[in-house]
């Protein structure tokens, strides 16, 4: 391979990106060196096994990826604003929607959710950390380096361009000879392994590490949704692992799984992709439901209506999510029996989801609703998501889907559920738990600006797309001709996207502004919360709880406040606390994954093998390690607790 092929060249946009990336890296190195922060970043962050810090790192990455994916989106909208635009050529447009979709779902929505769950779940169940802190760090770094590998494709070697669904034969060697789809296969594989480990980790954490008295039916709703999400992760991600492995084999070793000759079957890719892909969209929406449940109940100042029904409905949704995948390819011709069955199972999902919607509404009823920013996001979710949901049901009607499939009607559907569901939830959760993470609030005024700009922009952007779809506009078109009547609605959509972009900028400014001037949270409980995370200081000390809280009802902290005025810690009850040690190995193992992955992408097998050997070495070292962590003495706990509670 020539250097001129190695580095993507020939486009001002790309040169600008190159320059920006180099400048950012130089900037980071400079700042770290200048402020003598290298040691700090290594000891406090890169080697940490603390679930709260890992969660924060996930969220930082997710926001960066939202920016990257959002810039992709704005570029696409710019290109589609008017007919016959020449802002992007076809090839670039194709790369951009591919990276947009992949990044938004796998490197934005997933880590955002996983970040929040890292921070919140152990606190909500009254645990000191997750079951496997070391593994948790490994999960994060695998995700991180997987995302890195995907992102460098933009400047090194070329981006994937076959859509986030990467259908064969288009994504095969014959029609995508470059390295782009190798990046897709390998980077998703690496971060997917990390996600799978997260799923196992949190399943065990939630099942085994709840505070005494917290039975399953007293678990906070967010924790419930994470539990079920982890079940989905554990049983869905292996399918992706295999699908990507087969893709890698086809692309690197000329096997015949999805090829066009010798019996290969391209539809099998679609089948496997969606067996994972459909549960995947519920993997991101169920935690969102959990976040909304927490926030709605907190700010309606009322316990969640129909808690049990809420639990059963998530279980129902999760169960159904594995038997609906064919709705993504009704038009493949698998026959009316197959289509009918999957059509009905898909529509059935509406039933448990409806149960949830009505229970939220009835939680609000008779409440005393406070319109904080977090609450605004949660409220806006309800009507917007219902629009997305019912149009999903329309898509589920196989015979009608023949008309909607792959049109902008579909694009509108999934942005309505993904943005009004997942992104709203991430923003809601961010505002809600921000004081818990950083010890200060996000500014409410700016928060509301973000909300209105983004929420209105969102509707302006995506509502017209339903009609564009009905007018015959198909997805993944880089341009369209005049005279089809699509122009006005496309203009409107772009205006909406710009509003969302402005909203996002306000959010970023809010983060900066609040860090400097934001109200500090001294109480640890700024919202009059109901669950145990509010019983700790903001931010929580590294061992979370000085003594394990005892739970005797749903909304454990609310009840504690009612009964005993809060979480009472008697100093004589303190015992030494066992904590896991930090480790740099998860970081290095993941670097090795990155190197091995890079080798595979470019078929530099020596490099790939070297990376793989390094990984094996890391695993062996771990096996022989004899590190039982360390203990925090009672005196130290006393000192820390007094300092942390000083403000209260």
């Amino acid at each position, binding site marked *: 391979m020539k250097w001129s092929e190695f580095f993507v060249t020939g486009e001002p946009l790309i040169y600008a990106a190159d320059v920006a990336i180099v400048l950012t890296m130089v900037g980071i190195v400079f700042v770290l060196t200048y402020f003598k922060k290298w040691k700090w970043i290594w000891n406090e962050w890169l080697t940490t096994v603390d679930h709260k810090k890992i969660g924060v790192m996930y969220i930082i990455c997710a926001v960066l990826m939202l920016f990257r994916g959002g810039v992709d989106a704005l570029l696409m909208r710019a290109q589609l604003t008017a007919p016959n635009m020449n802002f992007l050529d*076809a090839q670039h447009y194709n790369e951009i929607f591919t990276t947009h979709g992949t990044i938004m779902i796998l490197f934005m929505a997933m880590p955002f959710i996983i970040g929040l769950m890292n921070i919140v779940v152990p606190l909500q169940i009254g645990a000191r950390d997750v079951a496997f802190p070391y593994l948790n760090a490994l999960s994060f770094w695998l995700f991180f380096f997987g995302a890195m590998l995907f992102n460098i494709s933009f400047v090194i070697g070329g981006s994937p361009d076959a*859509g986030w669904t990467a*259908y064969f*034969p288009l994504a095969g060697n014959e029609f995508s000879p470059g390295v782009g789809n190798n990046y897709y296969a390998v980077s998703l594989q690496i971060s997917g392994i990390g996600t799978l480990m997260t799923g196992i980790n949190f399943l065990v954490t939630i099942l085994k590490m709840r505070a005494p008295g917290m039975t399953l039916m007293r678990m906070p709703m967010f924790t419930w949704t994470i539990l079920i999400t982890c079940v989905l992760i554990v049983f869905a991600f292996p399918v992706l692992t295999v699908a990507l492995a087969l893709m890698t084999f086809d692309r690197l070793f000329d096997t015949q799984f999805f090829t*066009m*000759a*010798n*019996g*290969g079957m*391209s539809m099998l890719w679609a089948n496997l992709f969606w067996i994972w892909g459909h549960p995947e969209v519920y993997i991101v929406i169920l935690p969102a439901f959990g976040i909304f449940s927490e926030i709605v109940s907190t700010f*309606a*100042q009322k316990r969640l*209506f*129909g*808690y*049990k*029904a809420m639990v059963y409905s998530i279980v129902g949704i999760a169960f159904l999510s594995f038997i609906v995948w064919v709705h993504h390819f009704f*038009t*493949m*011709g698998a*026959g*009316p029996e197959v289509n*009918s069955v999957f*059509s009905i199972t898909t529509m059935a999902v*509406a*039933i448990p989801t*409806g*149960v949830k919607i*009505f229970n939220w*509404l009835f939680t*609000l009823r*008779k409440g*005393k609703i406070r*319109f*904080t920013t977090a609450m*605004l996001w949660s409220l806006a979710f309800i*009507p917007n998501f*219902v629009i997305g949901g*019912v149009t999903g*049901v*329309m898509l589920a*009607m196989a*015979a009608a889907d*023949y*008309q909607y*499939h792959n049109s902008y009607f579909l694009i509108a559907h999934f942005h309505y559920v993904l943005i009004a569901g997942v992104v709203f939830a991430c923003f809601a959760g961010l505002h809600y738990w921000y004081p818990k993470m950083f010890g200060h*609030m996000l500014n409410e005024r700016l928060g*509301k600006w973000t909300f209105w700009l983004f929420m209105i922009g969102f*509707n302006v952007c995506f509502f017209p797309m339903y*009609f564009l*779809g*009905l*007018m*015959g506009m*198909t997805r*993944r*078109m*880089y341009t369209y001709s005049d005279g089809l009547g699509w122009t006005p609605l496309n203009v409107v959509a772009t205006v909406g996207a710009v509003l969302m972009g402005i909203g996002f900028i306000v959010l970023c400014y809010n983060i900066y502004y609040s860090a400097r001037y934001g109200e500090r949270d001294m109480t640890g409980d*700024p919202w*009059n919360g109901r669950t145990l995370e509010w019983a700790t200081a903001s931010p929580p000390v590294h061992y979370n709880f000085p003594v394990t809280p005892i739970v005797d009802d749903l909304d454990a902290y609310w009840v504690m406040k009612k009964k005993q005025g809060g979480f009472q810690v008697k100093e004589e009850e303190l015992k030494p606390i066992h904590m896991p040690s930090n480790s740099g190995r998860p970081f290095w193992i993941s670097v090795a994954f990155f190197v091995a992955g890079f080798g595979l992408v470019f078929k530099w097998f020596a490099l790939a093998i070297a990376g793989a050997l390094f990984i094996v070495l890391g695993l062996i070292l771990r096996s022989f390690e004899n590190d039982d962590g360390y203990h925090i003495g009672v005196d130290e706990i006393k000192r820390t607790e007094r300092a942390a509670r000083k403000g209260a």
Partner: protein
Amino acid sequence: MVGADEGGYTVMKRAIWRALSVLPLLFLLSGCVERTAVLNPQGPVARTQYDLIMWSIGFMLLIIVVVFTLFTVVLIRYREKPENADYEPPDEEGNTLLEIVWTAIPVLIVAALAVPTVKATFAFEKPPTDKVKPITIHVTAANWKWIFSYPEENIETVNYVHIPAGVPVRFKLTSVGPMNSFWVPELGGQKYAMDGMETELILQADKPGSYMGRSANFSGEKFTHMEFEVVAQKGDDFKQWVNEVKQTAPKLNENKYAKILEPGLVGRMTFSNTHLEWIDHAKQNSHHVERKSAGNHGNPDHDMAKDSHHHGE
């Protein structure tokens, strides 16, 4: 503490939701409908789909109205106000009767949607009428053009297709290379065209006219340009067109065909024979080839020359 009284937002928000929910109506009432291909059915298949869509939209609007009304009422009545400062929300656990109600009604709605869906899904497998004998047209999608072959008439067109109005047309779909989707929204929904296999889509136009068709499944760089025109003609006009093509159009040969298949865009073309004479891409993937006998794995279409070796016993 944050978030005292934001009543103003609620009012504003309600206004916005109101505006949003009338938007679709406005749209339907305005002149956009003719432009809205899916909602402008020109054949029995598209009409069945149109009916199905309208039927479902009815239910969806109902659901939206119910949810939005509840939402608005609740937000207005139960927001925190200075007057209700010492109101203490009750600790409700839930209500079984309500749970049953909002489970049962959606079950009924889903059933009401499922029945016509299943009916239509099965119906589309057969021609909409058995009074008229359908005609068959083979459709081959290639990078990035559509090739139409009329095996009975023995003619072939590229990027446009003539059909007789009022006659069911069996489109037999296949592809060379990437998957495409054959979609003529005014005549009916789409189906995939895939390499090495054949799918069937039956459409019919009510009356003469010209309908836009395009690929709905992304197939690479110039996918956007994979448009074609469907020209529906009166039976006689169609026959006349076929005869004209037979007499005037040039013959297609393997070389020329190979040229057409090369990735890229081509204009409209017409030929007085079909490529099916020498290749049917639907039968390309070697697994479709009848195996002659054990030990002879030869495949005439693909010269994946394997030394013919006897395996096993």
